[in-house]
């Protein structure tokens, strides 16, 4: 379908009521979350109607969109490209694009988006699809054996040290910065993220942090509230806001029933996930170890000594050990994927830490059966926080310590330096990347199952979400948790040091032994620290220290 026809269709559909509802939503958000200040797209009306139009494809609640929808959206969002590129300008150019095929999203989705771009510019894109489990290894091996055979790369920020640090990426031209409106990115995704030695490399298409997902039906259940009082717990039956409370609630829920089914509290993914599993221990730990006065929480920024065996971290590990008996019987073999998609989204368990996409998926994906019973918040805090400098637990005057874990920092699109030799190819590669990272396109991506989540200030416009079909309360809670984490003054930012996933992977191995009862929390933490020290020496302590400090902005 042509864009013109779509616009026409849309103008017939739009009614005043939904517009008004949208406006009210913005006001409500402004009052509740302090987000009113973030930019609401104030561009021309044409742009607004385009945004509204793409969000109707296929419409939230109408199942997962597929190939036809992707191409349609790609076609409609081509205006920005047309401004910078003449029709057929890249005729004869062939580009290799390496990225994930994650459940036939990511690269498959990009194919759909870029098909109209290819038709317009005349360039041809060849696709290298990797399974997520192969991604890190493939990238590292390509770099090490100098077999980089791709021009455009979908990559997470943690790998910037490996790619940009080795001079393999192309520096972003200024016209691209303008086309993708780079100033619209959320604060925590602005430099130093996406840059290396002051140069910009990354088109951000995703924002990542872990937030707290919980089931509203649990915490409004009168039976559970009664039982909570009867057992003499402090305070009302409510959503826990500290890890101390989360643990209390988890133990309380063991053996209880809700709607005739076993009630279960927090879900700890106890099994490793190729390194990604360590993020979930971090979720518990950041509140204990990320002190507001200090940016460092993984390593000591003086000498790269691991902090992972200090009492704060050990307490987080001990929490998991203590909670596991109250969690499902197969939890010891549940990796984060199982935990989120086979347990939480399938109705088992009431609390979960996960990236924001579980939130949008609960509504738009075929995998979910819990629909609107989910609400969101930033990760729980802690009554006290461990200060490794003074070696003391401190209670802050401001109340519990919150430290949202900005895990992975999201996917981005990078262009490789090997295109720089050919100006036409270079422009083509950056144009393709810019099309994928386009401002309007990104809105569609974060609203529908794509694996991408909100990462721009312009994504905070509740009216647009409601217009697309989201429930207002639900999406308000979701966006509040997302932007609340991104903009949190005490957010824990992941250090972009080379080999960061190696650290996580070693830690997972040791944690597996701890959770299986072969070691105590302290022993496990000590062996992680020892392994990390060894790894740092292997990769190069001086260099790691320098990069670690730079990534923290020190």
């Amino acid at each position: 379908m042509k864009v013109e026809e779509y616009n026409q269709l849309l103008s017939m559909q739009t009614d005043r009521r939904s517009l008004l509802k949208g406006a009210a939503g913005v006001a409500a958000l402004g009052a509740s979350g302090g987000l009113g200040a973030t930019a609401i797209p104030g561009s021309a009306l044409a742009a607004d109607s385009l945004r509204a139009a793409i969000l109707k494809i296929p419409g939230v609640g109408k199942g997962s969109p597929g190939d036809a929808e992707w191409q349609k959206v790609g076609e409609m969002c081509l205006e920005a490209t047309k401004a910078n590129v003449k029709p057929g300008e890249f005729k004869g150019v062939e580009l290799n694009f390496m990225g994930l095929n994650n459940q036939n999203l990511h690269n498959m989705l990009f194919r759909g988006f870029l098909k109209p771009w290819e038709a317009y510019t005349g360039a041809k894109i060849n696709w290298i699809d990797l399974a997520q489990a192969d991604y890190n290894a493939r990238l590292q091996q390509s770099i090490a054996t100098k077999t980089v055979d791709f021009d455009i790369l979908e990559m997470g920020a943690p790998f910037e040290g490996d790619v940009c640090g080795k001079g393999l990426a192309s520096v972003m031209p200024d016209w691209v910065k303008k086309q993708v409106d780079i100033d619209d990115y959320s604060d925590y995704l602005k430099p130093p993220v996406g840059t290396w030695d002051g140069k910009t490399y990354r088109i951000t298409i995703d924002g990542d942090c872990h937030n707290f997902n919980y089931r509203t039906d649990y915490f409004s259940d009168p039976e559970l509230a009664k039982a909570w009082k009867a057992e003499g717990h402090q305070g009302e039956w409510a959503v826990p806001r500290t890890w101390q409370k989360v643990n209390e609630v988890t133990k309380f829920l063991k053996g209880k029933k809700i709607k005739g089914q076993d009630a279960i509290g927090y879900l700890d993914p106890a099994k490793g996930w190729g390194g990604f599993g360590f993020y979930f221990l971090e979720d518990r730990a950041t509140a204990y170890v990320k002190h507001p006065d200090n940016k460092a929480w993984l390593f000591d920024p003086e000498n790269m000594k691991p902090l992972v065996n200090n009492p704060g971290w050990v307490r987080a590990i001990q929490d998991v050990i203590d909670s596991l008996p109250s969690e499902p019987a197969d939890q010891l073999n549940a990796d984060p994927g199982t935990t989120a998609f086979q347990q939480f989204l399938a109705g088992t368990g009431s609390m979960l830490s996960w990236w924001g996409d579980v939130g949008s998926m609960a509504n738009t994906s075929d995998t979910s059966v819990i629909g609107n019973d989910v609400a969101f918040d930033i990760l729980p805090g802690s009554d006290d926080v461990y200060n490794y400098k003074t070696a003391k637990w401190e209670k802050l005057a401001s109340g519990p310590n919150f430290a949202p874990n900005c895990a992975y920092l999201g996917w981005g699109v990078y262009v490789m330096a090997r295109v720089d030799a050919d100006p036409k190819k270079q422009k083509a590669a950056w144009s393709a990347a810019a099309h994928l990272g386009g401002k309007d396109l990104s809105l569609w991506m974060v609203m529908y199952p794509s694996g991408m989540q909100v990462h721009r200030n312009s994504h905070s416009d509740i009216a647009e979400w409601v217009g697309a079909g989201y429930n207002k309360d639900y999406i308000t809670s979701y966006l509040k948790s997302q932007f609340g984490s991104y903009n949190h003054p005490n957010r824990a930012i992941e250090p972009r040091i080379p080999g960061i996933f190696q650290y996580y992977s070693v830690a997972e191995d040791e944690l597996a032994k701890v959770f299986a009862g072969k070691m105590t929390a302290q022993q496990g933490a000590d062996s992680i620290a020892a392994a990390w020290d060894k790894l740092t020496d292997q990769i190069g302590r001086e260099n790691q220290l320098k990069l670690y400090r730079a990534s923290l902005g020190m």
Partner: protein
Amino acid sequence: MTTASEAYSARRRASQPWNWSRAVAKILIYAALLTWAFICLFPIYWTISTSFKTAVNVTQGDIIPFIGRFQGDWKGWRSLGLSPDTIFQVSTVRDEFFLRFGNSVIASVGASLLAVIIGAPAAYGLARFNYKFGPWRNKDISFFFLSQLLLPPVVLAMPFLVLYKELALLDNLFGLILVYTLMVLPIVIWITRDQFETIPIELEQAALVDGCSIWGAFIRIVLPLALPGMVAAFILSVVLCWNEYFFAALLTSTNAKTVPVMVASQTGSQGISWWTMAALSTGAIAPLIVIGVFLERYIVKGLTAGAVK
């Protein structure tokens, strides 16, 4: 051969009177057979049926279709562009699947053919002649071939990546065929050597006396006799190559990519699309199931000749 033995057993059956222990034994035999057949077939049924499920069917573990919730849904196939409503539309995922499917066919058939072509003569040589290769004798040469099976493939990653880069064989179907040939060659040699050893040597001697060369005797006398065994080795090789994942993920990118990597791609940080994975798995094993159904007798027959020395 089978008819003769069946006639014999039938006669035996008829000649023996009905008795209880025989009946019980029969029941036990069929019970065991049916149980194991169920164990073998149910997971395959599960895979195929899952490709027609929705999220609720998966999370509730529905087994039998058309009852209650489980009405069947094309969701899994739709995401591949292979459902009735999408089959005639443009679908990048379907194009991708068919490209990979074609590559898988070429790579596995090509490698298996090559392995049989160079493996069978080697096996014949090892079965018939005594070689000396420095200090090596037949036994050592056989073990050398076998030892190619022993190494965990993961450590070949870097060496092969470097080697293939230098030979410009990365992302090249021919390169993939070479690796797969290396992978299945030991099995081909092992199986066909047993075959050749059972062929009576007198046949070749007669041919030699008639003036055939060694190769003539091999091609005209031995090969036809050993053909079933080579077919069996070929089929086993195709199956092993078809499912190979590690080298496919390592050495291919845009031209030579194969199906297994696409199956693995259905998992990741966005959970698992069970229906799509099941549909892909179904599509991937379909040709092998066809092979199993139609060529099963060749496998057993082919191996039979060489089995007992």
